[in-house]
């Protein structure tokens, strides 16, 4: 690996100044599970590595009933899994986070680092999309917020500017009772997802008041199945409606064939997994 200079700033401003100063030759280090590998293989050779784990504000994982869940940039997948409020109010996120690599990976890798890596198969992305997450970004020009729906611009690409960094991802507080389902197909325990589906549904007097259905590894980016959501939103769910929603989700995905499996398989699985995820959510709400 090429030599580099290592900095561990104590504030976000210090980190941004470093990103600005080194103009694209500086990389942020959080868990390191992605960055280290790319540096080792020579894919990236930054002159400067900025370790953000020493920035206290970024290590926080906080929930309040007014503001919802705030995940700091240095929060690991293991911390998200173990947090009682996440377990109680954002069950699909706990399930999704538990699929990322091995225990060793989850003890270091951060949720936000994984999102910034922007793999189309990023495990937590479908859950975060279904929970309507917003990404908080800080740069030399100040702060901005981007809906997670708009954060990914392609495989491995995000809307982050050269000297910008994500400081947090925020999930709105749940409105009433929430049911969820998260399913993922994989070859081995720690392999990347072949296809994943997530459904998050809120109920109001027998109808599906809020519906989030999102898919992973079946498009250039993690995908919200907006048409599938529309099938259920505002409706009293029936078995037929659930099937229609699942089939609709399968028409919205744009999978490729690769070394892991074929596009046809992915498309079929979107139908099956989405149906099961929606059923799981509705069963939790006692609506089916």
């Amino acid at each position, binding site marked *: *690996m090429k*030599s580099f200079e*290592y900095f561990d700033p104590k504030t976000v401003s210090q980190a941004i100044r470093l990103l600005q100063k080194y103009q694209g030759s500086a990389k942020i280090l959080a868990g*390191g599970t992605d960055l*280290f590998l790319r540096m*080792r293989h020579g894919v990236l050779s930054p002159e400067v590595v900025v370790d953000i784990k020493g920035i206290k504000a970024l290590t926080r994982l906080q929930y309040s009933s007014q503001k919802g869940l705030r995940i700091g940039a240095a929060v690991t997948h293991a911390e998200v899994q173990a947090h009682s409020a996440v377990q109680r109010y954002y069950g699909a996120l706990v399930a999704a986070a538990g699929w990322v690599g*091995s*225990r*060793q990976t989850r003890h270091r890798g951060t949720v936000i680092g994984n999102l910034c890596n922007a793999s189309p198969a990023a495990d937590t992305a479908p859950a975060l999309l279904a929970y309507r997450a917003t990404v908080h970004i800080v740069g030399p020009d100040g702060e901005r917020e981007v809906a997670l729906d708009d954060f990914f611009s392609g495989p491995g690409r995000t809307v982050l500017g050269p000297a910008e960094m994500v400081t947090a991802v925020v999930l709105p507080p749940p409105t009433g009772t929430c049911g969820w389902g998260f399913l993922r197909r994989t070859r081995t*325990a720690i392999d990347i997802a072949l296809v994943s589906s997530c459904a998050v549904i809120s109920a109001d007097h027998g109808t599906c008041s809020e519906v989030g259905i999102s898919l992973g590894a079946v498009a250039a980016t993690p995908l919200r199945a907006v048409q599938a959501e529309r099938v259920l939103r505002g409706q009293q769910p029936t078995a037929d409606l659930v099937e229609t929603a699942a089939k609709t989700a399968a028409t919205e995905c744009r999978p490729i064939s690769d070394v892991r499996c074929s596009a046809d398989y992915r498309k079929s699985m979107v139908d099956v997994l989405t149906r099961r995820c929606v059923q799981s959510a509705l069963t939790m709400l006692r609506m089916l």
Partner: protein
Amino acid sequence: MKRLITLIVNGQTYEVAVEPRQSLLQVLREELHLTGTKEGCSEGECGACTVILDGKTVDACLIFGVEANGRHIVTIEGLATGEELHPVQKAFADYGGVQCGFCTPGMILAAKAFLETNPNATDEEIRWGIAGNLCRCTGYVKIVEAIKAAAHHYRAMAAMQG
């Protein structure tokens, strides 16, 4: 340029000058000469380099030594007490969970850390718990048996404290 870092490994404090690009695995093996931790893939896939950092299992091959400055690390060398093997080590020996031994240091640390929070794990849960540790020799059967046997020790400890 080298940096002076302090690592507390198995309760002992070490001061060592390292380049930022040296991984924690390299620092442990090449600077501290603690060669119990093995290099299997250097990609964070096989778990042979598993160590316990601040109480959590991690792949040392994916961490820069400088990131561990001031931190507490447990390696396989830190498990036995003098001549007395740790219960997990003893179980691996008793149940045939070791063949070539290369995955073993990482596997034992992963098992130890897993059992501390999951003393009542089923076979299925154990398999998922050690998913980050690959073994090319055993087919995992004896490893899982050894971990189940070692779980008794953790349940007994939990019962004593409870």
